[in-house]
């Protein structure tokens, strides 16, 4: 009797792009959507909230506490809560994941602004920058390396967390795990893990590249400060 191989390559080729909703390429697409939209939304929300927390430090502890509690809630619980509101749509995964990214991104924005050295801020004031222009042209650009470092963590964790959504039928590549477990068939599980890890590595690499391009001044800056 021939033993079952660990990976059935023919299964992969047959299921890569076969037009069905459970084709691997379709799952990959929805995985990408559900992983990256929360990071983008998270940045959009974290930026003003982080600025507010930096401006009025008394806001920071309550805000950080709230998003941390959200982060501590099991994702499945959050999915179930939003299931009753948004139904079986990607939004049910995207909204909780957005809250998770906030737990990383809000502190990143606050720390980023705190990383602007006092003498840099002082000299901007003394040169005659008004507050808004100082924020946009000096403080935010100088905060970029720290914010990007937070974005890397948020992105990678978001890519990994999407798979939990499989439990409500919106898990992107995570659905391959469900499929594999239900049939005791390892190929989809291995494909799912490999693709998720690959996605995470690629996304992280792209963000590192973006940081190099956006902040050529920052590589030695942290040592020199």
């Amino acid at each position, binding site marked *: 009797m021939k033993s079952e191989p660990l990976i059935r390559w023919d299964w992969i080729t047959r299921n890569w792009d076969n037009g069905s909703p459970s084709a691997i390429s379709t799952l990959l697409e929805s995985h990408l959507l559900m992983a990256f939209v929360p990071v983008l939304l998270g940045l959009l929300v974290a930026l003003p909230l982080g600025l507010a927390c930096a401006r009025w430090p008394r806001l920071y502890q309550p805000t950080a506490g709230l998003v941390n509690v959200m982060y501590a809630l099991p994702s499945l619980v959050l999915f179930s809560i939003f299931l009753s509101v948004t139904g079986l749509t990607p939004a049910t995964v995207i909204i909780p994941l957005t809250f998770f990214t906030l737990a990383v991104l809000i502190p990143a924005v606050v720390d980023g602004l705190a990383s602007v050295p006092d003498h*840099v801020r*002082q*000299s901007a*004031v*003394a040169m*005659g920058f008004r507050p808004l222009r100082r924020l946009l042209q000096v403080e935010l650009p*100088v905060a970029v390396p720290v914010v990007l470092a937070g974005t890397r963590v948020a992105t990678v964790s978001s890519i990994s967390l999407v798979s939990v959504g499989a439990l409500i039928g919106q898990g992107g590549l995570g659905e391959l795990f469900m499929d594999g477990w239900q049939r005791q068939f390892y190929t989809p599980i291995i494909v799912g893990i490999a693709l998720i890890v690959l996605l995470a590595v690629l996304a992280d690499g792209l963000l590192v590249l973006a940081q190099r391009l956006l902040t050529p001044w*920052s590589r*030695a*800056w942290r040592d020199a400060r």
Partner: protein
Amino acid sequence: MTTTRRRRRDQNDGTKSLIIFDGVTKRYQDGTVAVDDLSMEVPGGAITVLVGPSGCGKTTSLRMINRMVDATSGRILLGGRDVREIDPATLRRGIGYVIQHAGLFPHRRIVDNVATVPYLLGWNRKKARARAMELIELVGLDPKLATRYPFQLSGGQQQRVGVARALAADPPVLLMDEPFSAVDPVVRTGLQDELLRLQSELRKTIVFVTHDIDEAIKLGDTVAVLHTGGRLAQMAGPATLLSEPVDGFVREFLGRDRGIRRLSFISAKDVRLDPAPADLAVGGDDRPIGLRVDGRLVPYGTFDPESDSMRAALDAALLSPDGTAVAVDGDGRVLGVATREALDAVLRKYAGGLPDQRAPADQRAPADQRAPAGEGSPA
């Protein structure tokens, strides 16, 4: 010395940039008084140094000029106008500001750092950058550094960029808050000399804050010594300050060697020179090599009567084995020697008091600390 040393820029002269402190007090909410009823006049086109121990309110006083701090009471007039009537950002764009760590923007290239205020004033990029390049050269930086980022420069270079940035929009007034205190002593001396050179060309109204009395004496046309608690103790020219401190506080703050340090303000050009003695070995290019003592050549001290002070001349005499200072010209060629008697004749004239007049370039390192010009030839 360059021929432009004494050139003046007419537009910066006169009373327009005069700053007047009129009974200025700064009291913080916790009751601390940083500046206490300060009244003083800062002359236009000169360097005024505010000096004092920490907590004397010198930085606060400086920052009240460009409204980074607002006075609790009293007025500060800039060119006759109360600064509190001027919008802070507009006011600050018209006043250069240099701080301790230079405060350069880490994310901007050097040229764009220098062009900061021109950009704020709405100049187009090309014009602003051209102006920035002029200033980069003016402060003695290699133009190649223009495209670098601040972290790629040394502390001393960054501080020069800070000065260039403060000068970019050609403001009549320059505020400098301990700008040279974070660099090592050799670099600091270089930056101080550079500032004096620039000032001899630009004639800005400079208010300079330091806790270092030697720096104050070296740079200030006028020195204001502030007491702890923000009271003005004495305001005078540096030589007057050294010879006539008003009270024990100022005397103590001036420290030791007041008499010797006063010699920095007397030019050595009046010292009588005698022909060089036979035991001074002179090379083919007229440069001294050493003094012959017991068949050995020993080092000697030199000074340049044209550019050095009596302090440097005396120092040179003390460094020579026979107590005579070797006088050399700008190229290092021997002019003669100053004997102790010749030095003493000048010293006698100035013992007790002296006018507040600076010897040209009196504050440069004594000649014997400079590399002999002959050593510059390629090996």
